[in-house]
């Protein structure tokens, strides 16, 4: 078995602010095995942006990695020098962003940009062009030869995103990080794009770390899902398991809020009461306690840790219930 593509251990990241350190990520661990699509579900403030920035080592100036390790195919990412990281980015680790214009240069034609991405190889200009055309075909862009001469603003949003994906996969990376790539697109386009991604992942065999707050997209695309809340991982496991059998109260409430899952028409949609906790002055105990309807005494004093096998969850209330199977404390 090859080492996992991404292995994050107990990652904690703070931001220095005027009011004190903001604990954006606390003790985050997750695993991206080879050839799998892992989804991260989380709402605003859950820390997913910080997580990605930390993985690719492009953090803001006031960020500090307080603790933890990130192993990329066995190598320590956090210990790498600037040049090494730069060599990895765009080659072994690629990214697709929510706004395709983040990756596309508005003043260069598509063909030129796709050719530039291949700068590391020794291919000739003609070979690069052929490869660019092939990649555009793979992402479902009609008439790819002509598109090479066009500029990003000539293309629709859906097409731009496809080009961004084509560029990201061109170097056959081991890990593709997709940060809300379909959030800005219509539902029809969204479905098309995730199907393409699925197909491409099968063909190329890369791993994908897919971040989104669209539950439906995660359910369709990802093999496993990681649920994050306010800087912590609260639940983690095979997608089917987590969605059909959510164990953490946050996951459960989140799924309940999804209007797609509510069968009967209602004009009174569920919400999760309360708001995000202050990440500078962290509450004692469980981070979700104030909004939880199942808290027990322990929740006020002790921070729950991820436990379980396969389908893990960080919750005292769940663990205290005898009705769960196969619990073993996860060795830290």
């Amino acid at each position, binding site marked *: 078995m090859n080492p996992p593509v991404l292995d994050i251990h107990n990652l904690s990241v703070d*931001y220095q*602010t005027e009011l004190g350190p*903001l604990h*954006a990520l606390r003790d985050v661990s997750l695993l991206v095995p080879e050839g799998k699509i892992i989804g991260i579900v989380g709402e605003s403030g859950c820390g997913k942006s910080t997580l990605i920035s930390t993985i690719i080592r492009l953090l803001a100036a006031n960020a500090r990695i307080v603790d933890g390790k990130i192993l990329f195919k066995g190598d320590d990412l956090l210990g790498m020098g600037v040049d090494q990281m730069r060599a990895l980015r765009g080659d072994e680790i690629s990214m697709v962003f929510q706004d395709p214009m983040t990756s596309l240069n508005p003043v260069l034609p598509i063909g030129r940009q796709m050719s530039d991405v291949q700068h590391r190889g020794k291919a000739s200009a003609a070979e690069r062009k052929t490869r660019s055309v092939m990649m555009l075909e793979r992402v479902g862009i009609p008439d790819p030869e002509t598109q090479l001469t066009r500029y990003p603003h000539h293309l629709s949003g859906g097409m731009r995103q496809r080009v961004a994906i084509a560029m990201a996969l061109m170097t056959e990376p081991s890990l593709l990080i997709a940060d809300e790539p379909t959030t800005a697109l219509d539902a029809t386009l969204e479905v098309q794009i995730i199907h393409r991604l699925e197909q491409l992942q099968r063909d190329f065999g890369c791993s994908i770390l897919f971040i989104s707050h669209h539950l439906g997209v995660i359910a369709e695309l990802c093999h496993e899902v990681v649920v994050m809340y306010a800087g912590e991982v609260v639940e983690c496991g095979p997608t089917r398991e987590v969605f059909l059998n959510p164990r953490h109260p946050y996951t459960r409430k989140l799924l309940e809020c999804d209007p797609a899952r509510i069968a009967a028409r209602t004009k009174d949609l569920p919400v999760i009461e309360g708001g995000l906790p202050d*990440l500078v002055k962290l509450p004692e105990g469980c981070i979700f306690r104030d909004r939880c309807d199942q808290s027990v005494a322990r929740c006020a004093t002790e921070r729950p840790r991820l436990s379980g096998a396969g389908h893990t969850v960080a919750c005292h209330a769940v663990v205290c219930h005898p009705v769960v199977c196969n619990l073993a404390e996860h060795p830290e």
Partner: protein
Amino acid sequence: MTGFVLVSVILFVTVFAAWLAPFDPLEINVHNRLSSPSAEHWLGTDQLGRDIFSRVLFGGQIALKVALVAISVSMSIGLVLGMMAGFGPRWLDRILVISFDTVRSFPTIMFALAVVALTGPSLNTVIGVIIITSIPVYARVVRTQTRSLRERDFILAERAMGASTARILRDHILPNIAAPLFILASMDVPAVVGMEAGLSFLGLGVSAPTPSWGTILNDGYSYLRNSPWPLIAGGLPLIAVTLGFTFFGESLRDILDPKMRKKDQ
């Protein structure tokens, strides 16, 4: 920080020139002409024995008076014209932009010479010329800012509510373009001061014996072989003003911009 300090010093020294100047800038003392800096005359004396330091201080008054008047007037007019161009109908925009470009394409010195030929040299001529050539600069900046704001959602929301153009310009456009405008004005001070000095140097501005940094420079240039000090003395304040206000403008920009874009984590 440096900017603030320099600007404060310059302003203080200029405003209180009358009290700070050790000598009367017009007092002639031919026996002591073109002397080097000494304890008595910090920057030496010029060709008529006048204390250069005192002349520099009073020259500062002129420089900053020109800057204040010229910039505030051209900024105000430029603001109005720029908003009209940016927010009004396209035909108005076209006319105004062509006017701005036409005025800007006149070489300033030529323009000044032409005006002087009509009205004779004076400080007001200088101020007038600077105003006319500066208006298009401010107007252009205001126009660009206004045009980009015009399409923003909050302006559309105001229109949807039925707000009048005047209200939109006053309450919603103006506050959002004020910051870049003030930064521009602050960076413009050295340019205006330099223009005044230049025009006075050429004899198009203040006339002798009124001290202006430009005339001091001119005198220094004429008597360079005798003593370098008048030239140096005329140049130093220009350097100080340029550095001071430029740093000041940059600090202003750093203070004002991040606040506008500040997002909560």
